[in-house]
Each structure stands twice: as structure tokens, then as C-alpha cells.
């Protein structure tokens, strides 16, 4: 079973690569075709993923609110989200008069493209990674901050006062919370000594960082979850779209497919932050290993690595979804207070602690 899995991903991918390079003489053309194939595979992965997350969100909400959630379309309501997507696609994509039409139509595209770019260095399973770039963590934090451009663009070009307020809020919010996210990522980079995603996963072969790294890593894990919830604009930090204050915030004027793209981006972002948290703190696809207990580790290896990765990711997604259905929303000044007065100083001190711990070798 283990052997089968190692065959499946890496060797199929390299087989296709070698076949393309050998059959097509022009190297540039071969690489372009390869990229298109990767892009199609990514889309084929993302759309069902968003269906699953949408369905999961509704079921979690139903579970927390003493109701069933969707249960009419398809078995256990599983096709409800498909029906909703069809509805969104069929709807007229309105562009308001007075809006900046170019930016208005560009904004949802930017949102989706940026979050798809971030997926590149994430290791979905053993040897299954689109692009194992050597500055993986830096790449992720750099590209994910581009999303704010999409939101600002949407808010500005909509020619709507609510949208503008929502966009301005999210600008301040995302820029602030980026710092805490970055600092908590750095704590793992310090411990690993590498920015490369595969190195970070491999460094957790004798135990995940959240276990090996004592309290400082747990602190940075908690900060990462809080700050990244804020960065992807999810409740209780959903000030950019604060329904009760700004109706729908920056995407008030969007309808149909353009709105669906914002929704798609929201769910992909949710998956990405959970995947990064799982990779950095919970070992990514690395099975649950304890030190040098060879027999135990070997038993754990029988569970496929993709299952480990998805299990951890969906565990964090479940936690973030519970936030949304539990907490009230923060006010805009409280949101910034939380970041600048609490999370950022704590992360700074924590970074020093992690550094000392790494130098002295106090971690397991």
C-alpha cells in the first residue's frame, strides 16, 4: 500500500514530464503544456474542494444551531451546493452604472488567481507538490498579501458607499494581521532552518513541531490561527463584509458568477491557511511519529500521507468554522487593538523565545 502511494504521485508526475520533454522538441512548449495540465488538475481539485467546504460549512452551522442544514437536494443534501452554484452561474452578472467597469470585473479574478498561486508550494502528500520552491514560506506570505488588492479594487470600483467602507476596513485589517502571521511563520522557520516546504515537513519526522516545540510553538500556532482567520476575512473578523453593518461590504454590488468567484476565493483561502497551519505546526503529510519508536512509527506510516494531510487540514478548518458560528464580530478599533497591542507584542516576544530555544536546543 505504501509502495503503491509512492508510485502514484511522484512517478506519474515525473513520467508525464519525461514523456512531454522527449516527444516535444521545443522545451518551452513542453513546459507550457505541462503548466496547463497542472492548472487543469488544480481546478479539478479546487472546485470539488469548494463544494465540500461549502457543504461542510452549512452542516457545521446546522450542527451548532440545532437544525439539519441542507437535506433536500441529493443524499443528505450533498448536492445543494451544486444547485446553488448552478443558480449563481445562471444569474445575470450585473455591473452597476457609475462603476469602474475594468477594475470591477478584474477584482474577482485577482482574488481567485492570488489564492490559486498560493497553492503551488503546498505539499498535499508525500512527493506530491506542484512547485517545491526553496523560499516556500516567504512565497506564501508574499503572494497571499496580494489578496488585499482584489478587495480594495472591488470596494473602490463598485461606486457604493458600503463597499468603500468595507474595502477600507479590510485594507487596514489585512495589512495589520499580516505581521502576526509572518512572525508566527518565522518561529517554525527558525526551528527548521529552511524556508522550503518539503524541508519543513521532513524536519518533523521525529515529531510534529507543535509537540516538539514546547509552549512557544503552541503560542505561535494559536496566534497563527487567530491572525489568519482575520487575514481571510472570516468571522469574528469579517469586518470587510460585516453583514449587519455594511450589508455585504466590498462585494455588495457583485452578483452571479463574479460573486461566486469571491466565494470560491474565500473557501480556497480557508483551505490554504488551514493547510499551511497543518504543514508548519502539525507536520503536513508526515504521519504521527514519536521520536525513535520504530515499530510505532512504522504502523503510522500505513495510513496514506494524503489522508494525514487532509485530516489535519480539515481539523483546522472545522475549528475556524466553529469560530464563525460562535463569536460576535469585533468592532473595527477593537480589531486593530487586538493586533497591535496584544498579538504583535506577544509574537515578538515569542519569536525571541523560539530563537533562544532553537539556539540552546531545548526542543525535543
Amino acid at each position: 500500500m505504501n509502495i503503491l502511494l509512492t508510485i502514484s504521485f511522484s512517478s506519474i508526475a515525473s513520467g508525464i514530464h519525461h514523456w512531454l520533454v522527449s516527444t516535444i522538441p521545443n522545451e518551452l512548449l513542453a513546459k507550457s503544456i505541462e503548466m496547463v495540465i497542472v492548472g487543469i488538475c488544480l481546478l479539478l481539485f479546487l472546485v470539488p474542494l469548494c463544494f465540500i467546504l461549502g457543504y461542510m460549512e452549512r452542516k457545521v452551522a446546522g450542527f451548532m444551531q440545532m437544525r439539519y442544514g441542507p437535506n433536500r437536494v441529493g443524499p443528505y443534501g450533498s448536492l445543494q451546493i451544486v444547485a446553488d452554484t448552478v443558480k449563481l452561474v445562471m444569474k445575470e452578472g450585473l455591473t452597476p452604472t457609475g462603476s469602474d467597469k475594468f477594475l470591477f470585473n478584474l477584482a474577482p479574478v485577482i482574488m481567485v488567481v492570488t489564492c490559486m498561486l498560493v497553492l503551488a508550494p503546498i505539499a498535499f502528500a508525500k512527493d506530491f507538490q506542484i512547485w517545491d520552491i526553496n523560499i516556500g514560506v516567504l512565497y506564501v506570505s508574499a503572494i497571499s498579501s496580494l489578496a488585499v488588492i482584489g478587495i480594495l479594487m472591488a470596494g473602490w470600483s463598485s461606486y457604493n458607499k458600503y463597499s468603500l467602507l468595507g474595502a477600507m476596513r479590510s485594507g487596514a485589517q489585512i495589512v495589520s494581521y499580516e505581521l502576526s502571521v509572518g512572525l508566527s511563520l518565522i518561529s517554525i522557520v527558525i526551528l527548521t532552518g529552511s524556508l522550503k516546504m518539503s524541508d519543513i515537513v521532513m524536519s518533523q519526522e521525529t515529531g510534529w513541531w507543535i509537540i516538539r516545540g514546547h509552549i512557544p510553538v503552541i503560542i505561535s500556532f494559536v496566534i497563527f490561527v487567530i491572525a489568519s482567520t482575520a487575514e481571510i476575512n472570516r468571522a469574528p473578523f469579517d469586518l470587510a463584509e460585516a453583514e449587519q453593518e455594511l450589508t455585504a461590504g466590498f462585494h455588495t454590488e457583485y452578483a452571479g458568477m463574479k460573486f461566486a468567484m469571491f466565494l470560491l476565493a474565500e473557501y480556497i483561502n480557508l483551505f490554504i491557511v488551514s493547510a499551511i497551519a497543518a504543514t508548519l505546526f502539525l507536520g503536513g503529510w508526515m504521519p504521527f511519529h514519536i521520536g525513535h519508536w520504530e515499530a510505532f512509527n512504522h504502523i503510522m506510516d500505513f495510513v496514506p500521507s494524503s489522508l494525514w494531510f487532509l485530516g489535519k487540514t480539515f481539523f483546522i478548518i472545522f475549528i475556524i468554522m466553529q469560530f464563525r458560528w460562535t463569536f460576535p464580530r469585533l468592532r473595527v478599533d477593537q480589531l486593530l487593538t487586538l493586533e497591535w497591542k496584544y498579538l504583535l507584542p506577544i509574537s515578538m516576544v515569542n519569536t525571541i523565545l523560539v530563537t533562544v530555544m532553537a539556539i540552546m536546543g531545548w526542543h525535543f
Partner: protein
Amino acid sequence: MSLLGEDIVTEEGEFVINIGPQHPSTHGVLHLKVWLDGETIKKVQPHLGYIHRSIEKMSESLSYRNFIYATSRMDYLSAHINNQACALCVEKGLQIEAPPRAQMIRVILAELTRLASHQLWWGCTGLDLGAVSPFFYAFREREAILEIMEETCGARLTQNFCVPGGIMTDIHPNFQKRTNDVLKQIKSKFQEYDDVLTGNVIFENRNKNVGFLSAEDAISFGCTGPMARGSGVSCDVRKWFPYDGYDKVQFDEVLGKEGDCFSRYMVRMHEMKQSVSIIEQLIDNIPEGDFQAKTKMVLKLPKGEFYQRVETARGELGVFIVSDGAASPYRIKYRSPNFSNLSALDHIARGYKIGDLVAIMSTIDLIIPDVDR
């Protein structure tokens, strides 16, 4: 210059937005014009009239038995208490009194109405501040109360159970047992309410030190009900001007101190407990007897002016009837609690953020059909 056609930014550099008439947090068709400086509120101007149905004028052509039913549509969450106010006012004019059994059932139903109304408010407060789940927990208990209403009154929301001289029919045989069950359920859930919202740090921060209303201002704006009591003004009509036997039950008037949103919130939370205790005192002691006093077929009030006030879930409702001796009132005027409470909104909200405006509105607990009538 038209109301909506003004420029986005005024000459002073203020940003003007229209919240409502269709907006998720105005709980109806309230239209607020808000002048903003960044996120800070400079001025709030409520515009009314989107749901004006001229209930007062309409009542002038209805008989004294019929005009009561229109009042269910004013403050629809306190429909029974509105009916009670009108029935009491007509009774005052006719110089009759409802039999003790009818009075007691009226009070029990009024307190159940208050409980249901406060529960809806509690759910909506959570919803306004972005917590969706409390809404469903609140509706669980509210639904149980509405089922009692349905069984006894035949309607869930607009009960129309009070008639001049008593109540329309006798209570359902299951009424007492069912009410006791519901009380037990509600009492066991108070802790859950506190766990979900009251004790939540985010919720406390959103409500504490927000939306101050001093006792003097509360009086001068004519605020009543939990809103004035949150500022420490003792104004419970049930205590000061008891009606329908409220003087015979033991209950405390809940008073807040600070006058901010959180103190208004706590007043309502404690009021729910007081309502439960009032119903508990009465539910097993309903006296036997008639449920309606004997009245003529056509009611005619003597010439004169009659005023009756009651405490609805939102404050003091006054019914003022001018009679010229005919079978329908010459003039009717309702002093609705929400209208006065809304008038304080501009004063409270100035200087706070947009998010605070939502919190303030939800603790004022506005019902727009009651403002417009």
C-alpha cells in the same frame, strides 16, 4: 434637494450613508441617514413613515370591540399587551372591571409575551453583533411559548385575546401544565444564554462603555421601559400604576446603573427572570369564575377622555380615547414606547462607530410598526 439625491460627501467633508429602509440590522423599514467622519458617527437622522398604516385614524371608524385588533399590528411582539391596554381603557370608560380569573390570565399571557419578546430581542442582539447561533437558541424557547399562545388564543403572534370586560374564551385545559413545562425549560436555559453571549469577551467589549444615556436624558427624551431602566430611571408602570392585579404579585423592578448598552442588555436579561417568577406565582392559583364581565352588545363610552398606560416589553404604552358618546371613539392616540426611545438614538450614537450604532439599535430594541403605527 431630495432626501436621497445628495452627494456622497457634504461640504464639510462628511460621508453620508443611508442605512435602511432595507438593511439587515434596522429590523424593519427604518431609514437612518448617517453622517460619518471616517467610521465615526457625526449625526443620525431617522426617517419614518415607511410602514404608516394610520391605525389611529382607522380606529375612529371602528367600534370599541373592533379597534383593539388593529393594535396587535403595532408592536407585534407585544400584541397581547397592546390589546390589554386598549381593553383596560375601554373598561375604564365603561366603569367595569374584568373578573379576577380574566385578569390573572391576562397577566400570565402578558408575561409570556414579554418573555417571548425578550427572547427574540436576545437572539437579534447576537445576530446584530455577528453571532448567528444565539438566534436559534432564542427561537427554541420562543417557539414553545408561541405554541402555548396558539393553543389558548388560536394565534401565535397577533393573539387578539383581550376583549373589553375580560378575555375572549376560557383557557385551554392544557394551559397550566404546558406553561409549567415551558417555564422549567426556560429556567434551565438561562445559564446557556449567559454562556453564549453575556460572558463572551468580544460581546462585553462591544457593549460596555458604548451608547451612554444618562438618567436625565432618558427622562427628557421620554424613554421608558428597559431602556430608561438601564440608565437607572424607575419607570415600571406595573409598579407605579398597577393594573390587572400586578399589585398582588411579588417582583422586582430591575434597574441598571451605567446606562450603556451592556446595562440595557442586563436589565432585559434579569427582566426575563422576573417574568418567569411572576408567572410561577400565578399559574397554579388561577381563580375559578367567569372569564368575561357582562357587557352590552354595542359598547358606548360616556362622553369624556380616558387614558390607560401599561408596560409592554419595550416600555410604556399609553392609550388615550376621546369619546363623544357614540359607538366608536371620536379620537384615539397611542403613546408608543418605541417612538420616544428612537428619538434618543441621535443623542446616544454621536461619536461612536458604525458597529456601535448597530449595538445601540439592538439594545433600544426597536419595532418599526410601533414607531409609525
